């Protein structure tokens, strides 16, 4: 088991948040969290990565509790939460070197390798403030993949990107999953995007997890993930009425 989330709840001062979220991610999964903006995807991911704390519930990554085992639980994890966390006044290479400094076995060849894989090698010495949104997103992905993690968490990785940018990010994710067996948890509000890369999906709305399913079942039942989402949300509304 890569990730086990049990009964996760958090309420912000404005009353929004997440309620009793539970799901599991198995090794090799590309697991999608689909929901509109404000459905609780980012809150869930922030709690998983220790950026935020849950009011209730527990998160375990490779059997280690994020709350109790702290930084140890993040040893095998790479992530990109909301916008990429970049130092704009540094070069792409320097950003990667800064991150690599926290790992004993990440040296210069790995930095070059990840720059190549994300198509940023020729821009490695350019300052990040000169980068386009797509390049920043790719650098964010490079930072998430740098330490050869076994589990990568990506929050809206295609956010704000044009078609080419979205395809580039998708290709990198699929390549990493195939060649390195990395497990992914990816959130998005774009059903089509998740449909193309995920093998499992969870539907979120208003801070609640409505349903989880394999992509095979989703396609078999509804034809597309978009239809599945609409059906799930509508049936949820009918139940609540």
């Amino acid at each position: 088991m890569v990730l086990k989330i049990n009964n996760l709840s958090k309420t912000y001062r404005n009353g929004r948040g997440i309620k009793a979220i539970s799901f599991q991610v198995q090794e090799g999964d590309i697991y999608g969290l689909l929901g509109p903006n404000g459905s609780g995807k980012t809150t869930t991911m922030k709690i998983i990565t220790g950026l935020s704390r849950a009011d209730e519930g527990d998160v375990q990554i490779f059997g280690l509790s994020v709350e109790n085992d702290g930084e140890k639980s993040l040893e095998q994890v790479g992530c990109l939460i909301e916008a990429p966390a970049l130092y704009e006044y540094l070069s792409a290479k320097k950003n990667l070197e800064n991150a690599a400094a926290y790992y004993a076995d990440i040296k210069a060849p790995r930095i070059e390798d990840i720059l190549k894989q994300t198509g940023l090698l020729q821009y490695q010495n350019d300052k990040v403030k000169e980068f386009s949104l797509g390049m920043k997103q790719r650098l964010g992905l490079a930072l998430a993949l740098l330490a050869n993690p076994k589990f990568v968490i990506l929050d809206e990785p295609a956010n704000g990107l044009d078609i080419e940018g979205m395809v580039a990010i998708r290709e990198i994710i699929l390549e990493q999953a195939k060649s390195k067996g990395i497990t992914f948890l990816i959130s998005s509000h774009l059903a089509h995007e998740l449909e193309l890369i995920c093998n499992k999906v969870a539907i979120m709305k208003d801070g609640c997890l409505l349903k989880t399913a394999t992509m095979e079942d989703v396609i078999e039942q509804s034809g597309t993930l978009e239809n599945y989402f609409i059906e799930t949300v509508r049936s949820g509304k009918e139940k609540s009425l």
Partner: protein
Amino acid sequence: MKAIQAGVLNESNKLLSRKKYQVSLIFTCLLSIAIGLLGGYAKGLVGLSLTNTPLTVLSLVTGFILPLMIAMVSADLFTAEQENGSIKAVITRPVSRSSILTSKVLAIVLYTLLVLVVSLVTSLLYGLVFNGLGVSHIAEALLAYAVSIVPMLPITLFAVAVSQLCKNSSSTVMLSVFGFIVIFAASVVFPRISPMLFTSYTGWYKLFIGAGMPITNIINVMALLLAYTLIFFAASSWAFEKKEY
């Protein structure tokens, strides 16, 4: 320990790669020369000593320049990074929050030391070339600059604690400087509480120069400054540990 080492290197590299901190070092350099020149013209008037440029520069640097720079650096390393989200770059790594806080604090202390070294070297060179400083003056200046880092520690941790309360970097700078001024003003208005306030000792190097060193006094002040440093560090750690991003 390795995480702190890596963190200090990263934070220091970040600071030194920013233009404003490079310019601050050049400004310190120019200021030292300007004070030397002004000392020459004023010939001992307006509190500027002609004979001991390094000590005149030191009193200005520790009393005004460093508290302001420390507030700026704290705002950039803590509040600004929280504001623009770049702090997530390290929070989501396998590094404890206490190590992150310690690295950032040490990087501020290192930058403070660098400012002191730059002003020492510049003012010493100026003093040697233009004022003919003697060996005793050089030794005195070295000692004064070396001990001057101590009163900067509670000021650093005070600014770091303030940075945990603020949501944007300009309010961190303003609140740190305002807090420093208020505490300093309180020591002037109520002289009886002055010995208990950390802002009263920016010129504590004066205890080390001259004929005799008041050892008991030095130990008492050292204990007081250390206590303030630890209290502010504990408060900052608590707030940093609790923070959500």
